């Protein structure tokens, strides 16, 4: 894509917010459509795979957002990084019969998948935001690739 075709880079906070709301959306805003598509497919597939393996109750949200309840369920910190899909899944999980919860390896693998999905989205979010900052900086605008 030539520099003339490249869209005007959005502000970094907007990029970060959209990258959390929809995995890959940060790259989409920056004109990196293939990269955005790959991130979206991978993050959603891993999250969906985790819910498929362990059942929706692997999304185990704390009852309040205070520190202690959150530290008792630390995997949710990773899971919620996937975006609103994890919050919706947590709400739906509360309405599922507690008897249908996974045990042992089903629980472990399902939790691992969903938390890794969130952490992969965090990596993509940080990188998209960084690219947005570089693209909007006057002296280094439009730099290609990862500067790291």
């Amino acid at each position, binding site marked *: 894509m030539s520099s003339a075709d490249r869209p005007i880079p959005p502000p970094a906070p907007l990029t970060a917010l959209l990258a959390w709301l929809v995995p890959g959306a940060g790259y989409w805003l920056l004109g*990196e459509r*293939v*990269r955005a598509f*790959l*991130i979206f497919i*991978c*993050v959603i*597939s*891993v999250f*969906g*795979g985790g*819910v*498929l*393996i*362990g*059942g*929706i109750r692997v999304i185990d949200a704390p009852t309040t957002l205070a520190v202690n309840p959150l530290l008792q369920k630390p995997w949710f910190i990773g899971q919620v990084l996937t975006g609103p899909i994890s919050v919706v899944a947590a709400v739906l999980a509360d309405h*599922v019969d507690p008897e*249908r*919860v*996974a*045990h042992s*390896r*089903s*629980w*472990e*693998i*399902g939790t*691992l*998948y969903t938390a*890794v*999905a969130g952490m*992969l989205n965090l*990596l*993509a979010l940080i*990188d998209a935001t960084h690219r947005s900052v570089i693209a909007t900086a006057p002296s280094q605008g439009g730099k*290609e*690739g*990862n500067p*790291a």
Partner: protein
Amino acid sequence: MILADVIAFTPFIDPLPVWQPDWMWAVLLIPLCAAVAVVYKSIKCGQVSRIPREALGLFITIIVGMVAAAAALAGIVRFMR
């Protein structure tokens, strides 16, 4: 028993009933490694055309590393017994 589990299974609500061969849980780590490799290389590669090849290389590296680590740990456990 297995048939009853499969019939009663509701996708995304019930846990997946796939644990009859004991090694099945380890197989489920393969798609996770593939996704990690693709996302990592999607972030790191400057050119999109290089992503498939580099992701495949990283995927193989992760799998070989995990198998080597498992073999080493199994050897240590056997030696300690």
